[in-house]
């Protein structure tokens, strides 16, 4: 392609820009996909035709964030006393949520190249681009005023990030000894009670024998030194948090696809023996199911069991322990987990935020839905990716499908009207 040719095209585009913007038909949104819903009670509900079952596919979000007036805010359901409102629209592919000491909300992205900062000034909320040009920057975490960023194959940091919200923030790379695989290359990043950064290196596949550099959780010092593997046998993690009492690492794990509609389940795991625990991939799934290819000659008893099964293909992502006091007391030290929702399943499941209650010894007690309504007629109207409890007692939920962040608050006087 010649350069002359390219510049000719640019001029043509510039010349026709105004004309297109004036065209009213061009501004219309495409209609939502999906066939007309079946009548209520129809036995065909939940029983897709063979062709319908053949349409299983990952559900990539639209590339352009949904406008505020088209977000599913009124469709989302919560227990009595809780209320959900729109916090911010136009946050491209919103994923991991973090809060700075001065209150800034940072929002990462998996498919886009940006990290956003949401600031409130004089009662006005503003969504800013903190930094762009990143590659799959899904993992972010705040620690002592510094924002750490885990991209596909490097970890970087921005010191005093809340003083650099004007576009002057420049990440400094601290660690890059990482594989560059696209598959499960995006990361979740957290800081442990040992002041080290923890992130996963996922398996570079749906199911395969991973290399020594894959399928693990690593930790590094805050300056990028001292890398060590603390867990193996994980497929992909997109959510981790630390138990407020035991200080053990809990994490969500996505299990393999294409084995069956109903197995294996995604998992909630606990790292009780750092450096020793192996969670079973690719030999064992959901703690009790050997793989049809890699599992022969192995036993699930060789591996660390999950503490809870989270639903087949439900795509458990971001999770946080609740340690505040604004929500009812029963939620204290429970885990809120965003289930992004399935694609490798005819009848979608997940698409919600669930609460997992633990026993005093840290084992699983029970699970219940918290925020629901993201699936309508087996289609997504949004997909929750992460949760965050903010200093003002609210919970934020990111929706990477719509590029939005919602805010959930509790007021016990609201329960009176229910």
């Amino acid at each position, binding site marked *: 392609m010649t350069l002359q040719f390219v510049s000719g095209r640019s001029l043509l585009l510039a010349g026709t820009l105004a004309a297109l913007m004036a065209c009213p038909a061009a501004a219309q949104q495409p209609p939502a996909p999906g066939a007309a819903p079946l009548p209520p009670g129809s036995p065909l509900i939940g029983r897709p035709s063979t062709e319908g079952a053949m349409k299983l596919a990952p559900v990539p979000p639209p590339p352009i964030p949904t406008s505020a007036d088209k977000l599913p805010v009124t469709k989302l359901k919560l227990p009595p006393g809780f209320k959900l409102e729109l916090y911010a629209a136009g946050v491209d592919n919103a994923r991991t949520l973090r809060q700075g000491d001065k209150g800034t909300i940072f929002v990462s992205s998996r498919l886009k190249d940006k990290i956003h900062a949401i600031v409130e000034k004089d009662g006005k909320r503003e969504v800013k681009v903190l930094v762009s040009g990143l590659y799959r920057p899904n993992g972010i975490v705040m620690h002592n005023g510094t924002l750490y960023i885990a991209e596909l194959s490097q970890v970087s940091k921005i010191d005093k990030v809340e003083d650099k919200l004007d576009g002057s923030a420049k990440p400094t790379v601290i660690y890059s000894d990482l594989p560059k695989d696209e598959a499960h290359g995006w990361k979740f990043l957290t800081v442990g009670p040992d002041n080290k950064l923890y992130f996963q290196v996922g398996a570079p596949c*749906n199911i395969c024998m991973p290399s020594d550099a894959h399928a693990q959780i690593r930790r590094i010092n805050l300056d990028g030194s001292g890398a060590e593997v603390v867990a193996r046998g994980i497929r992909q993690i997109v959510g981790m948090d630390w138990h407020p009492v035991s200080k053990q690492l809990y994490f969500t794990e996505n299990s393999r696809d294409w084995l069956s509609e109903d197995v294996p389940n995604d998992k909630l795991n606990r790292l009780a023996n750092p450096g020793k625990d192996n969670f079973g991939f690719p030999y064992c799934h959901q703690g009790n199911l050997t793989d049809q290819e890699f599992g022969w000659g192995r036993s699930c008893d060789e591996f660390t069991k999950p503490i809870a099964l989270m639903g087949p293909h439900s795509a458990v992502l971001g999770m946080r322990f609740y340690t505040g006091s604004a929500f009812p007391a029963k939620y204290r030290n429970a885990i809120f987990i965003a289930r992004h929702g399935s694609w490798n399943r005819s009848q979608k499941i997940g698409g919600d935020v669930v609460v997992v209650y633990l026993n005093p010894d840290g084992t699983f007690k029970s699970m219940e839905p918290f925020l629901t309504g993201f699936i309508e007629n087996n289609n997504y109207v949004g997909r929750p990716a992460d949760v965050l409890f903010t200093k003002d007692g609210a919970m934020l939920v990111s929706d990477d499908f719509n590029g939005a962040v919602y805010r959930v608050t509790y007021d016990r006087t609201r329960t009176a009207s229910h």
Partner: protein
Amino acid sequence: MRTFLAALAALGLATLPAVSATLDERLAPCRACHGEKGQSDNPLVPSLGAQPKDFLLVQLYIFRENMRKVELMNEMTKGLTDDELRAMSESLAKLPAPMPVPEAIDPARMERAKTLVAQNHCNFCHAPTFAGQDQIPRLAAQREDYLLKSLREYKSGARPGYEPAMASVVQPMKDEDFVELAYYLARVK
């Protein structure tokens, strides 16, 4: 190749003075390269006919944002608004589907490819007829050279894709598998 570049350059120059170009005029250069009737005759340039509009929108978007790096396409989409991208993708999606390669077909190769399709679930995401759906492209009767190039680029990482799903799918596949799949998909009816 030279012919269509020349034709485009002439078209561009001819349209320059016009201030009030319609969407149709804007799409002229797209159709000139990718085929007036949805079928590309140009090596390594994909046919766009009957591609799902959501797929076209994603591609236009990632070209505009330089997230998929093809210099010409990055330049073509520079500065376009979201609504302009939507209008272009909706219009291009209405072009007729391309025709499969008409030449004599080797049944043994077609059968080998069908096995690969089943093993790798290609017909799930891309639909049993390979017509694509939503943001997943139509593969039926796509240019063989372009299919092969895309599969190789997904494997090497040269084309990351918007959603990294294809990187995972091609990970266990070999180059000879790509050759067979491209042969099959260009001819599938």
